[in-house]
C-alpha cells in the first residue's frame, strides 16, 4: 500500500515556473514547431527587429541576411543592419531575456509588440545547438564595437554573458547591429519568400540575401524615403479593460476623475469625460486612486457607452496605395495588371486599424509543366501582412483569409468554387496595420476574427476587385474588338474580288477602298470604351430591327 502524500509534500514540489522555462517546454507557442519554421523564425525575428530599429531612428534600412549550412540540420543565421545600434548595457537583456522590450506598453504601430521574438531565438539556439548567440553592436562610428556571446538562463529569465569585449574590428559599418545564431533547422524556399514579401511591404528597405548554396539575391528599394513615423497613441476609452484601467488609475498623476479621463485617453475632451462620469454615475471630482472595484466596473461601462470621437489615426503607418503599387510592380515586373487600395482607418475594441489590398494579375506561371488539358486554374496566392510583416503560416485560420473567401469573386470576373479562394493567375496582398494587431497566438501567424476587421478587409478587397474587373472587361472588349477586326480583314479579299466582278470596278481599287474603311474603323476603336458600346448598341439595333420587320 502506498503512502499517502500530505499537503506539505505537495508544497515542497510546488515552485515558481519562470517564463523561460515555460517557453522552453512550449517552443511551438513561439513558432518553433518544426525545423523549417524554426529557421524562418530566426531570420524573421532578426529582420523585424532591424527594420523597427532603423525606422524609429529615421535611418533607411540596409539589411544583410546570410544563411550557412554548418552541418546536417544546423544552420548559421547572420543578420546585420545599419540601424542605430544598441547601447552596451542593454544588449544582454534585449537578446537574452524574454518579455523584455520597448514596444509592449505603448500603443504604436510596430512590427514587434511583445518583447519575445529575438530572445526566443537565443533560447531556441541554446536548446538545440548550445552555441551562444553572438551580437555585435556599434552606436557611433568613433566608438568601439561591443561584442557579446549570450545564453539565456531559463530558471531566472536573465541573460548569461558567456563572453564580452569591445573590439576595433569593423563588423557592422558605421553603426548598426549584427547577430549570429546557430540553430537546428531545415532550409526551405519559405525563407526567400519571406524576404521577398518583406521587401514588398517595406519598399524603403534594401535587403541582400545569401542562401545556403551561396546564391546572392538583392531586393532593392523602390522608395528612398522612410514612411512618416507613426505616433504613439494613448488608449481609447472604447477598448478599456478592467486590469489596464486599474493600473492606469493607480499610476496617474491626475487629481480628479475628470482630468484623469481627459489626460490619459485619446479622443476624450471635457464634454465626453463629463458624459462618461454621468453614465457611470460617478462624481467628476473623485480621486482616481480611490475608485473601488464596482466603481471601476461602472467607469468601464461609461467609457464603452459614451459617445467618444474615434481614436486618432496618425499612429498608423500604412504602406500607401501608390507605394504598394510601385513596390509590387518592382517585384513582379512581368505582371499584366497591378493595383492597390489603402482604406481609411477603422476601429476595433478602441484600437485603430487600417487595411490595404494589392492585386497582381497575369504573371508568368512559375511552373510551366501545365499543358492545355490541365488548364484548370490554380487558386490565387494570398500574401498576408500585419504591420508590414509577412504572415507565412496558418493561412486558413486567419481572419484576413476568411474575408478573402467571403468575397464573391465571380463579380470581378474570376472563378471561384463555393466559398474558397478564387482561381486565376493572380496574387492578392492584404495588409493590416494597427497599434495592436490581434494575433491568435504569440507566434503571430493569424489575425483573430474581429467582425470590424473582416468587414473592412472585405470592403478593401471589393474596392480593388472593382478595379481588376474593369481592367479585365476592358481587356476582354479589346480582345473581342481585335478578333472582329481580324475577321473583317479576313473576309475582305473575297468581298473585294466579288464586288469587283459585280461592279466592273478593278479589284485593286475596291480592295484599297475596303481596306481603308476597315483601317478607319480600327482607328476609331483605339479608345475602345466609348466606340465599342456604340458599335454593340448599333448591332443590337440591327438585330432588333431585323426581328421587328
Amino acid at each position, binding site marked *: 500500500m502506498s503512502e499517502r502524500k500530505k499537503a506539505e509534500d505537495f508544497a515542497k514540489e510546488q515552485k515558481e515556473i519562470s517564463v523561460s522555462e515555460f517557453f522552453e517546454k512550449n517552443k511551438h507557442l513561439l513558432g518553433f514547431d518544426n525545423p523549417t519554421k524554426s529557421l524562418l523564425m530566426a531570420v524573421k525575428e532578426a529582420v523585424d527587429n532591424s527594420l523597427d530599429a532603423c525606422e524609429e531612428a529615421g535611418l533607411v534600412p540596409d539589411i544583410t541576411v546570410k544563411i550557412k549550412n554548418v552541418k546536417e540540420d544546423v544552420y548559421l543565421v547572420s543578420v546585420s543592419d545599419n540601424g542605430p545600434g544598441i547601447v552596451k548595457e542593454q544588449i544582454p537583456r534585449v537578446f537574452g531575456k524574454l518579455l523584455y522590450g520597448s514596444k509592449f506598453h505603448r500603443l504604436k504601430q510596430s512590427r514587434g509588440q511583445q518583447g519575445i521574438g529575438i530572445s526566443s531565438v537565443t533560447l531556441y539556439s541554446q536548446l538545440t545547438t548550445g552555441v551562444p548567440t553572438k551580437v555585435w553592436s556599434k552606436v557611433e562610428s568613433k566608438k568601439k564595437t561591443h561584442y557579446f556571446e549570450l545564453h539565456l538562463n531559463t530558471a531566472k529569465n536573465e541573460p548569461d554573458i558567456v563572453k564580452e569585449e569591445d573590439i576595433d574590428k569593423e563588423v557592422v559599418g558605421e553603426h548598426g547591429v549584427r547577430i549570429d545564431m546557430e540553430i537546428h533547422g531545415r532550409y526551405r524556399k519559405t525563407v526567400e519568400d519571406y524576404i521577398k514579401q518583406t521587401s514588398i511591404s517595406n519598399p524603403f528597405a534594401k535587403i541582400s540575401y545569401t542562401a545556403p548554396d551561396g546564391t546572392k539575391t538583392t531586393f532593392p528599394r523602390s522608395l528612398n524615403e522612410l514612411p512618416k513615423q507613426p505616433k504613439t497613441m494613448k488608449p481609447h476609452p472604447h477598448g478599456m479593460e478592467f486590469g489596464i484601467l486599474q493600473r492606469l488609475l493607480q499610476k496617474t498623476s491626475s487629481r480628479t476623475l475628470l482630468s484623469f479621463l481627459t489626460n490619459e485617453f485619446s479622443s476624450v475632451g471635457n464634454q465626453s469625460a463629463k458624459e462618461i462620469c454621468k453614465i457611470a454615475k460617478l462624481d467628476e471630482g473623485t480621486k482616481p486612486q480611490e475608485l473601488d472595484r464596482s466603481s471601476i466596473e461602472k467607469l468601464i461601462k461609461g467609457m464603452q457607452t459614451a459617445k467618444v470621437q474615434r481614436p486618432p489615426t496618425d499612429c498608423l503607418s500604412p504602406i500607401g496605395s501608390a507605394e504598394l503599387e510601385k513596390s509590387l510592380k518592382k517585384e513582379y515586373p512581368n505582371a499584366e495588371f497591378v493595383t492597390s487600395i489603402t482604406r481609411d482607418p477603422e476601429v476595433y475594441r478602441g484600437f485603430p486599424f487600417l487595411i490595404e489590398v494589392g492585386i497582381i494579375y497575369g504573371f508568368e506561371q512559375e511552373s510551366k509543366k501545365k499543358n492545355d488539358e490541365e488548364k484548370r486554374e490554380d487558386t490565387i496566392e494570398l500574401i498576408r501582412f500585419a504591420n508590414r510583416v509577412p504572415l507565412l503560416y496558418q493561412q486558413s485560420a486567419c481572419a484576413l483569409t476568411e474575408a478573402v473567401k467571403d468575397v464573391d469573386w465571380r463579380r470581378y470576373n474570376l472563378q471561384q468554387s463555393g466559398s474558397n479562394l478564387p482561381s486565376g493567375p493572380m496574387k492578392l496582398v492584404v495588409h493590416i496595420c494597427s497599434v495592436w494587431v490581434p494575433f491568435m497566438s504569440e507566434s503571430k501567424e493569424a489575425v483573430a476574427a474581429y467582425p470590424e476587421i473582416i468587414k473592412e478587409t472585405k470592403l478593401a478587397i471589393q474596392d480593388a476587385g472593382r478595379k481588376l474587373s474593369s481592367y479585365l472587361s476592358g481587356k476582354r472588349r479589346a480582345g473581342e474588338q481585335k478578333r*472582329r477586326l481580324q*475577321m*473583317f480583314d*479576313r*473576309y475582305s*479579299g*473575297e*468581298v473585294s*474580288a*466579288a*464586288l*469587283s*466582278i*459585280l*461592279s*466592273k*470596278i478593278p479589284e485593286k481599287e*475596291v480592295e484599297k*477602298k*475596303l481596306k481603308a*474603311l476597315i483601317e*478607319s*474603323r480600327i482607328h476609331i476603336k483605339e479608345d475602345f470604351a466609348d466606340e465599342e458600346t456604340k458599335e454593340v448598341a448599333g*448591332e443590337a439595333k*440591327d*438585330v432588333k*430591327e*431585323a426581328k*421587328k*420587320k
Partner: protein
Amino acid sequence: MVKDVKKVLENLGIKLVQEIEKKENPNIEIPIRALSNVVYDKKLGQLTLGNKTSKRYYFNVAHAKKFMQTVMVASFSKQLLEQNIHASIRDMFYNLKRTLPDSDENTFDEQSESDPIIVDLEVATDVLREQLHLTTDRKGIVAGNVIIQDRGDNIDWSKLGSGGWSIPSTVDEITFKKVDAEFVLVVEKNAGFERLHEDKFWQKHKCILIGTGGQPSRGTRLLIQRLNGEFKLPVYVFCDSDSYGFYIYSVIKSGSISLAHVSDRIATPEAKYLGLTISDIYEYDLKKATIKAKDVDIKRAKELLNYDWFKKNPKWQKEINLLIEKGIKAEIEALSHRGLKFMSETYLPEKLKKKDFLD
C-alpha cells in the same frame, strides 16, 4: 420576266462599292423569309412575302460571313450569265468553297450553307434562281401531245417511248412549239405516272401528264404554271388521300412558306384537286385497301384544317375531318385493288366527267 439580271447584279455591286467609298457600313437589304413575314393573299389565292426586310451588314460580327457569301454567290452567278452557261447549285458550292488566307476558316463548309444564300440573293434582287443560271437536279417527268424547243432542239413529248421528258429546273428557258391538250393531270407518284403513261391515258383523254415524284420541284411547278397561264389549260392534281398528298396540292396551288417570294412565278391558284379523297374510298369501295392513319397524319391533318385556303372550302373541311374521324388514308395505288386498269379506265374518266373536283 424580261429583266436584265446582269444589270441587277451589277447595280448591287456598284451600290456596295459606293457605300464603302462613303465610309458607310455596306449592306444588302433582304426581305425576311420566315413564317412571320408570309401572308396568304386571298385575292391571288397564294402565299406571298410581306414587306418586312432585314439588312445584312459587312461590319457586323453576326452578318459579316453571310455578307461575304452573298456577294460571292452574286458574282458567281454574274459570271455564269456573262458566259451564258449554267451550273448546278452543287457545282457552285464546290467552286466557291475555299480556305480564307491565314486561317482555317472556309468560305463555305457545306452545301447546306450555300443553298440558303442563293434564296437570299433571289429575294434580295427579286430574280429567280433559274434566272441566275443556277440549276438543281431534274425532278419530275412529263408526257403529252406537245412539242417544245430547248436550247435549240425540238422535243416531242409524245415520242419518248416508255419514259417521259425529265423536267429541268430552267423551265422558263423553253419555248412551246405546239400544245395539243385540253387539261393537265398532275400525279404525285412516279408509279402512277408510269401506269397512266403505259395505258396511253394522255392520248385517249387529250391531256398533258405530269409526274412529280413527291413534292414537286420548282421546275415542275413552273411548268404547271406556264401550261395553265399561257395555254389556259385546267390543272387537276391527283395525289394520295392523306395529309401529305393534300399538302402537295396546296403547294402547287398556293405556294409554300419557304418559297413564298416566288409564289407568283410558280404557284397555280387555278389548280383543282381531283383525288384521291377520303370520300372516294367509300364511293369506289376501296375500304379494304386503306392504311391506318398514324398520329403524325392526324396531327398534320388538324394543322391543314386551319390553313386559310382549306378553311374557306366546306368540302375540304369535310374531307380532312373525315380523315381525322375515320383514322384512315389511302395511296393512289389502292385503286389497283379494283383491277390494274381501274385507275385509267374507270376512276379517272368518271371523276373527269362528273367534274368531281375540290378547289
